[in-house]
C-alpha cells in the first residue's frame, strides 16, 4: 500500500481582516500518496493556486488540518516551513522566476545555498543534465528561450532531490512544442518516483497526470483517477 504523503482535512482559507474577508477555500479534503502524479484543475479564481501554496508550505491554512508524512504542518514554525521547502519540495512557476543576469548553473544552485548537502556542484550538474541543458550551463538565464528557462526552473526544483515537485501552470507561457518537452520531463521525474502536483487550467496538460482534482469556487468538484476516467469515456463511446 502506498505511503500517505499528504492528508488534507476540511481545509479552509480566507484572506483579509475583519472588515473585508475573502474566503477562498471552503473545506477541502483529500490525500496524496507518495509517487502520485496529480493535477489540480480549475478556472481562474477557483482557489487552486492558493491550495498549492498551502500544501507547498508557502502559506498557512486558516482552519482544518494538514498532515505531511503524518506530521501536523500547522504546528511548524516559519523556519521549519523554510527548511521543508528547501529539502522536501521543489517549485516550478509559470513565470519561470529565474534570477536575471545569473548563469544557468547559479540559478540551479540557488536552493543548495540554503542546504547542508555536500557535493553541491555535482548535484547542480546532475540536475542540469536531467533537463538536457548541459550545453547551456554557463549561459546567462536572460538569453534562453522560454522552454529552456522552464527547464532551468525544473532543474532548480529537483536539484535538492525533493520528494514532491509543485508546478504552477508550467506550460502556461510556452508554445506547444516546448510545453510537450516540459511535460515529458515531468513524466520522467514521475517515473523516477517523484510525487508531482501540477496546477493547471488546461485539460491537455492535466491529462498527463494520473489523477485530476478539480476545484471550483473553493470546493472539490471532482477527484478522478485518469485511468478510470479513460475507461469510463471508452465505455460511453462503445455504447
Amino acid at each position, binding site marked *: 500500500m502506498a505511503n500517505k504523503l499528504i492528508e488534507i482535512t476540511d481545509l479552509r482559507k480566507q484572506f483579509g481582516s475583519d472588515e473585508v474577508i475573502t474566503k477562498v477555500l471552503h473545506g477541502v479534503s483529500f490525500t496524496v500518496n507518495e509517487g502520485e502524479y496529480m493535477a489540480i484543475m480549475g478556472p481562474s479564481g477557483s482557489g487552486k493556486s492558493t491550495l498549492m501554496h498551502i500544501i507547498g508550505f508557502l502559506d498557512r491554512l486558516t482552519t482544518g488540518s494538514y498532515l505531511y508524512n503524518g506530521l501536523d504542518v500547522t504546528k511548524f514554525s516559519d523556519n521549519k516551513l523554510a527548511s521543508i521547502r528547501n529539502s522536501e519540495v521543489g517549485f516550478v512557476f509559470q513565470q519561470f522566476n529565474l534570477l536575471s543576469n545569473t548563469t544557468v548553473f547559479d540559478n540551479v544552485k540557488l536552493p543548495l545555498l*540554503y542546504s547542508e548537502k555536500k557535493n553541491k556542484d555535482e548535484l547542480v550538474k546532475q540536475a542540469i543534465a536531467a533537463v538536457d541543458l548541459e550545453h547551456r550551463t554557463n549561459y546567462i538565464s536572460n538569453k534562453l528561450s522560454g522552454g529552456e528557462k522552464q527547464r532551468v526552473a525544473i532543474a532548480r526544483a529537483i536539484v535538492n532531490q525533493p520528494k514532491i515537485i509543485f508546478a504552477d501552470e508550467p506550460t502556461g507561457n510556452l508554445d506547444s512544442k516546448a510545453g510537450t518537452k516540459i511535460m515529458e520531463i515531468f513524466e520522467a521525474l514521475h517515473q523516477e518516483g517523484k510525487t508531482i502536483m501540477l496546477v493547471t487550467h488546461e485539460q491537455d496538460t492535466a491529462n498527463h497526470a494520473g489523477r485530476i482534482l478539480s476545484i471550483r469556487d473553493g470546493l472539490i468538484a471532482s477527484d478522478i483517477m485518469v485511468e478510470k476516467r479513460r475507461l469510463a469515456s471508452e465505455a460511453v463511446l462503445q455504447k
Partner: protein
Amino acid sequence: MKLIKTLGIAYQSLSKHKVRTALTVLGIVIGVGAVIIVMAAGEGVKGFVTDEIAAFGYDIIEIEVKTPNTGKTSTQNATQMAQGLSITTLKLSDAEAISKLPYVKTMNVGVIGQEVFNYGGNTKTSMIFGTDENFLDAYNISLAQGANLTAEHNNSLSKVVVLGYELKNKIFGTEEALGKIVKIRNKNFKVIGVLEERGASFMMDFDNIALVPVTTLQKQLMGIDHISFMIAKLNDTSFVDQAVIEISDILRERHNILEPDPDKYDFSVNTMQEALDMLTVILDGITLLLIAIASISLVVGGIGIMNIMYVSVSERTYEIGLRKAVGASNKEILRQFLYEAALVTFGGAIAGVMFGALISWLIVIIAKSQSFGWSFVLPISSVVLSVVVAVGIGLLFGLLPAKKASKLDPIEALRRS
C-alpha cells in the same frame, strides 16, 4: 561556515549591481577618508608641537608678567596683555635673585618691542628683543656669523645688535652686515652677529628678530626699567617642580605679595611641560571637534546605504520571494542584506583609509614645503576605529531595510514579479 556562505551570497548580489555598489561605497569612502585625514592631521600637528617644545628643552622655566587677580591661562589675562596693559614690576634684580638658586644654570631676561631699522635708506620694521648673552642658549639658536651679546655689552649699554637671518637679508641684501651700522630709532647700532636660519618656531619667527642688550633697549630706546620675561635654564629637569615653587616664593616676596595664591601674582611661572599639556588639550579638543564634523559625512554615507538598501529590497522583492520559496529562512534573508550593507561599508572603509592616508600624506608634503616640520602619522587606532565605526554604521542603517526584506511574504513577493 554560515557566515562565509551568507557573505558569498551577499557578495554575489552586490557584484551584479557594480555601479550602484560603487556609488554607495563612495559615500563611505569620503566619510572614512575625512575622519582619517582629521585624525592623521591631529596626530601630525601634535607631533609637530611636541617637537617644537622639545627643541626648547624641558629644563627651562619661563617667568613672564601677568595681570594680577587673573589666572595665567585666563582669557582676561590674555585680553588685557594683548590690549597693551603694561605690568612694570618684573625687574632685572628679580633675575639676579633667581640666578642665585643653586640649580639655575643660566638666566636669560628680555624686553620685547618693535622698532624701525634703517640702513642706507632701506627701512624695515621688526620685532626687537632686549636680552643678554644667554638668549641663544635658552632658545637653542646658533650664530651664523659674528659674535653673541655679552655681559659687558649690557653693563656698558652698548649699541650693538645681532640680526635674525631673514632680517639681515631684508636690510642688507647680499651685502656683508658684520661691522656695519644700522639705525634703530635714529640711533647707530653696530651689527656684531647674524643668527643662523631657524624658521618659524613655536609661534615665533626667529629669522625676523633683532637682539640688543636689554639695558640698551630699556634705557636708550624705550625709557623703561622693567623687563617682560625671564627664562631660567636649570641644571636638570628633575629640579623643575622645586624651581617653580622657589622662584614663585622669591618673586612673591620681592613684589610684596602676601597671599600665596598664583592668581593674585603679577607674574606667572611656566614650565614647558605645562605648555605642552595645555597645547595637547587644545589640539585634542580641536581634533575631536573635527572628527565629529567629519563623522557627519560618515553618517550621511550610512543614510545613503539605507536609501540604496531600501531601493534594493524593493527592486529585488521577487528575488527575495524566490529565495524564500527555495528554502531561505527569514534569518538568512536578514543576514544576507545585513552582510551586503556590512560588505559595502567595509570595502568603503578600506578604500576610505587609503584615500585618507593619501590626502594626509599630500598635506604633509605641502606643509613641509612651507617649512612646517610636520610628519606623516597614520595611527592604527584611527584606522581600526574608522573601519569599525563604518561597518557599525552599515549594519545599523542596513538593519531596517534588511528587516523589511526578511519579513516579505514569499507568495506576495513572487506575485509582484
